[in-house]
């Protein structure tokens, strides 16, 4: 409901900014201090979207590894070792989540350098609020994953812990599906 409200707010304010920069249209004086192209960087955001989708894959592999830890053969092959390593997949998920946050930090910084802040116009206010809240959820997810990774290193995660890992996985995929909606509604639809 929180994200539904934030997405609604973004869509309602879309196209109602009276000064630039604008998301999909170029901006020239007097609407902007200097001439600026459309501010959204689709290639960069597409990469970050791909990173977040892959983090969901590594999360399901982490859960599968935890669930099947007691089914590991006595002499596992290399691929069985890789697929069965919950530490590797939890670490990969946290790393991909952090990479997504890095992309977001880069995007926010470049927007500020181009003159778009949360106070510039309606687009800036609704965009930074929506994507900032999503980024905060990703940050919470990364911290959660790192906590699970620390537990895995300390005492090992096994089938008895499958439920707690599953709950964190559901949270992570929720963050992913919210981004799927944001990517289309904010970045791709002009």
């Amino acid at each position, binding site marked *: 409901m929180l994200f539904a409200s934030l997405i609604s707010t973004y869509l309602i304010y879309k196209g109602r900014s009276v000064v630039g920069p604008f998301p999909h249209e170029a901006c020239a004086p007097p609407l902007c201090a200097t001439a600026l192209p459309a501010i959204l960087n689709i290639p960069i955001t597409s990469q970050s979207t791909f990173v977040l989708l892959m983090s969901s894959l590594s999360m399901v592999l982490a859960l599968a590894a935890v669930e099947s830890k007691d089914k590991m053969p006595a002499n596992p092959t290399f691929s069985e070792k890789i697929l069965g390593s919950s530490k590797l997949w939890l670490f990969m998920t946290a790393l991909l989540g952090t990479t997504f946050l890095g992309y977001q930090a880069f995007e926010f910084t470049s927007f500020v350098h181009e003159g778009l802040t949360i106070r510039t116009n309606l687009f800036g206010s609704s965009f930074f609020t929506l994507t900032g809240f999503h980024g905060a959820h990703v940050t919470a997810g990364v911290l959660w994953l790192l906590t699970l990774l620390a537990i895995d290193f300390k005492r090992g995660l096994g089938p008895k812990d499958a439920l707690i890992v599953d709950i964190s996985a559901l949270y992570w995929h929720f963050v992913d599906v919210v981004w799927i909606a944001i990517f*289309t509604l904010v970045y791709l639809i002009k």
Partner: protein
Amino acid sequence: MADHHSHEHEGHADLKAMGEVHEHPTWKQYKWVALILTLITVAEVWAYYIPWFVASRAFVPLLLIMSAVKFAIVVMFYMHLKYDHKLFRALFTGPLIIAISTIIALLFLFSKLSVGAHA
């Protein structure tokens, strides 16, 4: 703590015995799901860069459909709702319908969407 975990595990096993919990997808299914999600994302971005298509009336509906398909795939396979008990499906789809209805209602309320011609 150990007791707590053993209770959780027993609870999970009980649900499994009752047929309430089903097996999750396999590694091969996960791999295909990731590939399909990537291909749909590539198609979405590709469509964004075709000017005549962006100008057409099909652009927005097609993007929304592709996004909805990605959403559904993640929910069904990664969030394993396809394999879960119908109660969990209802617990997810119920609030989702409320959320989507809220978005549509707010868009109508603030004149972003309208039915029929304006006077």
